């Protein structure tokens, strides 16, 4: 064997490594990945999602890694398979909603159904952000998918984005989960700004007990009404209500346990890593993701304002006033937003516990954001 042949062989080996196919922009993506992994581990911000998302971003941003493409024979790589069957087929968000339904107690919402309107009012930011996004040059479908971030509902954001603008899936999901995790940082200042000391001290009557029959009937009634009015969002809401019916019926304990435990955990892994894997430097490094992050923050703020204003308007007509601090919980982000209402309430009156009252608008926010998503899907389909 000649020296040239050995050199050729060495060159052949070296060209199959990532080092010879290195691009500068992937270093930026390592930084982005590290930031989200840091938020998950050090700050414990939505670690169940930000950790796999961060790792997904990290591993796909290496040259030649067979993760998010196809083999020469046309077979999908590993993460591409997760992405294709989980997200492109819109399976994972719906399965997550099944698990969420199996975990959720709608008692506070059933006991005080008026708070449903707060969940609707808190979708204000979704529609305002839509306008801002269109002004920035996004298409209408992209604008709808960016707007829904303010609804503070991860699976709904992913479902709508995958449906309307799959090219924005990574930035939208990241913005939604990041801001959901930062609800305790974003909302309190707005809550203080929008309310006066008297309003913050409003005491609400203790919620009535809700019977088992009412809890069983709730998912059936909700599924029926949503199916009639916004059928396009039934894959999400249908699964949500199925999970809840399983829980409340009490006769399928094993299924409920699986839906809220093992199944939820499994799909969360696939969801996180697949979303992260969509963020290759070539797709991510542009002005659009940065803009989405900026606008997402405004979106959250306007949704919070929308919820509080709705409570204030309702108080004009109600004999028993509602504490406007629970209005901010209309932005989904269950149960983080309700906890923020509780903490803010306690700051001004140490004996005024708002948690259960805030759970009503919080759960209404989930239904409200799904309804808003349904409105957008109906607009474009």
């Amino acid at each position, binding site marked *: 064997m000649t020296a040239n042949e050995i050199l050729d062989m060495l060159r052949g080996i070296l060209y199959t490594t990532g080092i010879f196919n290195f691009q500068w922009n992937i270093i930026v993506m390592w930084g982005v990945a590290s930031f989200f992994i840091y938020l998950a581990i050090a700050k414990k911000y939505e670690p169940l999602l930000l950790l796999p998302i961060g790792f997904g971003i990290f591993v796909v941003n290496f040259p030649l890694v067979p993760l998010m493409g196809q083999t020469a024979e046309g077979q999908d790589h590993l993460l591409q398979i997760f992405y294709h069957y989980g997200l492109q087929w819109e399976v994972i968000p719906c399965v997550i909603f099944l698990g969420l339904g199996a975990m959720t107690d709608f008692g506070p919402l059933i006991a005080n159904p008026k708070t449903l309107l707060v969940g*609707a009012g808190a979708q204000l930011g979704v529609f305002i952000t839509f306008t801002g996004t269109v002004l920035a*040059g996004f*298409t209408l479908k992209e604008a709808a998918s960016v707007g829904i971030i303010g609804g503070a509902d991860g699976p709904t954001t992913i479902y709508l984005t995958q449906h309307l603008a799959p090219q924005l899936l990574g930035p939208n999901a990241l913005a939604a989960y990041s801001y959901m995790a930062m609800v305790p940082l974003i909302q309190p200042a707005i809550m203080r700004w929008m309310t006066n000391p008297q309003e913050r001290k409003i005491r609400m009557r203790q919620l009535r007990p809700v019977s088992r*029959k009412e809890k069983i009937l709730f998912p059936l009634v909700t599924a029926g009404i949503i199916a009639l009015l916004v059928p396009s969002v039934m894959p999400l809401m249908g699964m949500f209500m199925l999970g809840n019916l399983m829980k409340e019926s009490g006769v399928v304990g094993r299924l409920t346990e699986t839906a809220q435990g093992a199944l939820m955990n499994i799909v969360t892994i696939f969801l996180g890593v697949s979303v992260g894997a969509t963020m290759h430097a070539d797709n991510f490094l542009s002005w659009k993701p940065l803009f989405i992050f900026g606008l997402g923050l405004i979106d959250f703020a306007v949704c919070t304002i929308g919820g509080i204003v709705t409570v204030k308007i309702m108080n004009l007509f109600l004999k028993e006033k509602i504490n406007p601090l629970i209005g901010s919980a209309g932005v989904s982000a269950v149960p983080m937003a309700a906890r923020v209402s509780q903490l803010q309430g306690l700051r001004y009156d140490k004996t005024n516990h708002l948690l259960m009252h805030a759970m009503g608008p919080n759960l209404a926010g989930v239904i409200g954001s799904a*309804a808003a998503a349904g409105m957008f899907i109906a607009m474009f389909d």
Partner: protein
Amino acid sequence: MKKIILLTLIVCWLGSMPGWSRADDFLGAPVIPGGKIIDKSKKRLEFNSEKTHDQVLQFYKEALAQLTDIKYRDWSDSTYIEDDGNLKWHSITISKNDAGGAVVIIMKDNWTWIIGTLVLRYIGVFVVLLCLLLGMSVSGAIISRSVKKMEGKETAAKA
């Protein structure tokens, strides 16, 4: 020379008449050849075509085949083509006219439509949740009434 100038002026005058105007596109939206313009402004173009509704629709389907954000809605006597992308025009409505031809209306992309549809859809979210509120109130009332009835029967049986 005078004749040429006169002829040119006549041609220009005829060309400027709405009924004789011809254009290949309006705000980037293709205009089917042979159409007779009925009304034209900066925001709207309306013209009659001797071709049937189906022929006009076929023309637009072929002309817009490359665009990805185009949506078609079929109604009983018309077809509505809408752009959800960033084009300058918003919609093309193709309606059947009495003479067996088609009337085509091309609308400019406008903020009135965007804001209008957003306001309506925001109200729509309230309507959905209001219906849910009504549904919950009705079902709650039925359940509490049935529970009271059953309790009444049990009390009567015990007595």
